[in-house]
């Protein structure tokens, strides 16, 4: 069997730009972003869904790009840290500014994943998605306020080896308050 059975052309929108990439079916979205599209913001930490360094937004939802097969993302709209913008489309996203202002990193390796994860978490909370620490009595569908433990729980899929957690929580609180 020829190699063509094991590869596909995948149309994608990445950070607002449409592209078509020929991918080996084994490629993850993370590898395509980093190695084919030159977007090295999303990082490879564990490559097994455990650290969150590879977090990107797919159709607006946060996901671990190291476990997404690129071929399965046909037609999806992917946003990486490079594509985040302020609401008016100009300048950096408020979370990016808050991370700088709060000094919410040390080496910075986990930061793109932390920020993409926080963007996704904020949208989930606004849409009324509960977390493990949300009071079960909260009416379904009502927005959940993000502070303290809610932020810690919702960002628990993003590890930081440098232990910048306290400042990460403060940075997210700056944006959600």
């Amino acid at each position: 069997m020829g190699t063509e059975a094991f590869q596909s052309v995948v149309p994608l929108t990445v950070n607002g730009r449409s592209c078509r990439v020929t991918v080996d079916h084994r490629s993850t979205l993370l590898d395509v972003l980093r190695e084919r599209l030159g977007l090295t913001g999303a990082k490879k930490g564990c490559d097994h869904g455990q650290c969150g360094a590879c977090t990107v937004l797919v159709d607006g939802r946060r996901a671990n790009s190291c476990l997404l097969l690129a071929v399965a993302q046909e037609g999806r709209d992917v946003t990486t840290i490079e594509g985040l913008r302020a609401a008016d489309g100009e300048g950096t996203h408020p979370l990016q500014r808050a991370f700088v202002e709060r000094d919410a990193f040390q080496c910075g390796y986990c930061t793109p994943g932390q920020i993409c994860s926080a963007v996704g978490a904020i949208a989930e909370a606004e849409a009324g998605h509960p977390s493990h620490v949300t009071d079960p009595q909260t009416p379904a569908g009502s927005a959940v306020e993000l502070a303290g433990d809610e932020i810690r729980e919702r960002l628990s899929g993003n590890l930081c080896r440098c232990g910048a957690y306290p400042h990460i929580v403060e940075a997210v609180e700056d944006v959600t308050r």
Partner: protein
Amino acid sequence: MKPFMYVRAHSVDEAAAAHAGRSTSRYLGGGTNLVDLMKLGVESPRTLVDVTALPLDAVEELRDGSVRVGATVRNSDLAAHPLVRERYPVLSQALLAGASGQLRNMATTGGNLLQRTRCPYFQYLGKPCNKREPGTGCGARDGVHRDHAVLGQSPHCIATHPSDMAVALAALDAEVELYGPGGRRTVPAAEFHRLPGDRPDLDTEIRHGELITGVVLPPETAGLPSAYRKARDPRLVRVRARVRGRGPGRRGLRRTRGADRIRRSGAPALARAAGRAGAGGRRADR
């Protein structure tokens, strides 16, 4: 990773035909377990049949009052769904007790039920494992097995099943809907996962090539007070209780054992309750 063919199915029949019951075919849900195992070499399919575009992504109330969850509903959407939060809180809480926000956005109902054990001997090709390769022995039995099963284990395998969701489904008397060459059938969630016995390679009652199309939550357990508590290390035991009936004399207290290793005082009562409930062992993963 070995090269493989990829097919995106748009109907259940198309999915079943593409899979064709071949031992080398696998359905692909969110991929959070399958892709992981492919990277480790534990799985090396020749064909992946992506089921995420199937029209199985709804949570809906049926005429008899039961709630049907499609196989491709993502774990995060299921946990947030008003029907689930209001009628089956234990299910929402069990889902939220597992994995991470990112993973729950990707993981599907079908894939969650069929995720494999996180036993390190299963995941590492350099060690024997009867579940991965029948007849090679159990590396965990005389190895590092602090996280392994106490209840329901066998001489052949002491691995636990990691699904939190499955514990809640068993407690709620849910049914798993299957579709395959033999037609449609349903299996009670409490019987879906097998104890290892002498066939630890078979995790569940599913037959090769069968597709999970959904899960049905019955009206009988809707609205019962229920909750999910996941105790993490050092106790390593997961117990979920549902109280049947209201008011005094609550008979039929039901507990589903989530797992595993019961080592502290106070635990024997849980162990007895768990033994009565007789579910498969499951362990907390994080």
